[in-house]
């Protein structure tokens, strides 16, 4: 092991290939995420950015290449999915809270069922993560009683309760009104400040620029350009120039 010289990345993709039928969605995608790093994946619809993110948590099986997450080979068929998903938290565009459970039950379900945590300990944990996203007063509410922004913050809290080593955000503000987007982005910003390792697929260019340590611009299933957030203001490839130039860069 050579961790001391250069720390092993928490997430690394190497030459990942993925097709849906005859459609090649990922065509040799490689990138890595170091501990504590915030990586934003941007690109047009259909560029493969969401698929790349979902491959990290093995919601999609890859056709080729290598994915290593927290030291596990995710591309291999014998991957321990439950162990992987305890290390990786994922938040979706459509929140996906469980509608038959209160916010508290949504949060305590996985710690109690998966980690065998006691109920009182799990409830205390629920209060702690809800405080992190500013929703302590909604502990006994049902998801349908919350606004979209509140539901998404609750979904983030639910993921946090499993104490993941890396969080994946899949266009988490795309279903929200502009005024609700802000409250969710603030929560993510705070997580970044606390040192959480994060990979996010986002259409919020201004947000990506302000929060991401590194940007991956995907185009036609490939990583077309990558670099620090400054590439958004000084893009080098014509495709990224066009992408950020089409009014996407609002800050």
């Amino acid at each position, binding site marked *: 092991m050579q961790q001391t010289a250069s720390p092993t990345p928490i997430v690394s993709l190497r030459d990942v290939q993925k097709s849906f039928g005859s459609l090649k969605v990922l065509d040799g995608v490689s990138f890595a995420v170091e501990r504590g790093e915030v990586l934003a994946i941007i690109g047009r619809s259909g560029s493969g950015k969401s698929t790349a993110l979902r491959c990290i948590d093995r919601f999609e099986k890859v056709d080729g290449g290598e994915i290593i997450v927290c030291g596990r080979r995710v591309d291999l068929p014998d991957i321990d999915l439950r162990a992987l998903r305890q290390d*990786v938290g994922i938040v979706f565009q459509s929140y996906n809270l469980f*509608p038959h459970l209160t916010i508290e039950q949504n949060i305590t379900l996985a710690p109690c069922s998966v980690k065998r945590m006691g109920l009182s300990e799990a409830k205390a944990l629920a209060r702690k993560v809800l405080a992190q996203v500013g929703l302590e007063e909604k502990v006994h509410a049902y998801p*349908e009683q919350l606004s979209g922004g509140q539901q998404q913050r609750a979904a983030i809290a639910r993921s946090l309760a499993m104490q993941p080593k890396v969080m994946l955000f899949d266009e988490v503000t795309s279903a929200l009104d502009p005024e609700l987007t802000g409250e969710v982005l603030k929560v993510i910003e705070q997580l970044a400040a606390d040192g959480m390792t994060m990979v996010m697929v986002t259409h919020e260019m201004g947000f990506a620029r302000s929060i991401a340590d590194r940007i991956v611009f995907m185009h036609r299933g490939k990583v077309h350009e990558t670099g620090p957030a400054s590439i958004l203001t000084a893009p080098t490839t014509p495709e990224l120039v066009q992408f950020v130039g089409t009014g996407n860069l609002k800050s």
Partner: protein
Amino acid sequence: MGGHLNINHLLFLGHGALWTIGLSLIALVGGAAVGFVIALARISPLKSVRLLSAAYVQIVQGTPLLVILFLGYFGLAAIGLQTSPLVAAGASLTIYVAAYLGEIWRGSIQSVPKPQWEAAEGLALSRTQRMMKVILPQAVRIATPPTVGFMVQIIKNTSLASVVGFVELMRSGQIVNNSLFEPFVVYAIIAAVYFAMCYPLSLFSQKLERRMGRGSVNPALA
């Protein structure tokens, strides 16, 4: 023979009605137990299990209940397995109801939005935990109105058990009529009793359907 409808006839019909309720309950409980297994088998990750359960459903749904009843009673007797009318009727109805409830419940489980499965998977819940704690509680809400509605079908279909000599409401009506020769009066009473058993269930099913929606996933987000 002959005479007028008296209290003894009515008591006899009442006794038959109780057996109709009893047979309906047997069909419901047996059919629910087997149907639950069928529903799970229909969405099993194993292809062979899916195919087998699908074949079961197709065969039963493509066979008249009357034929299943004859097979269960006369057919088994012909190959040396003597069954009582109660056992034959109970088993045949269970086989029949299981195929339909299995399909209703498979549909209900599958109509829980897929992102719910993914969210549960993302939280590292096992397949059993996902099913028991996330999917089934939501599927039950979806399944309740059609299940209650199907119970009306079960009650009415128990009348077919009369052909294997099981004395439920229909058969007891035939027996009473054989002594009175007043088919209109007797069968009108039978019809009224069936209606009295089925109508409240129909109403209940409609009420449940109207109440649906609250507490379920917002379809706009699913």
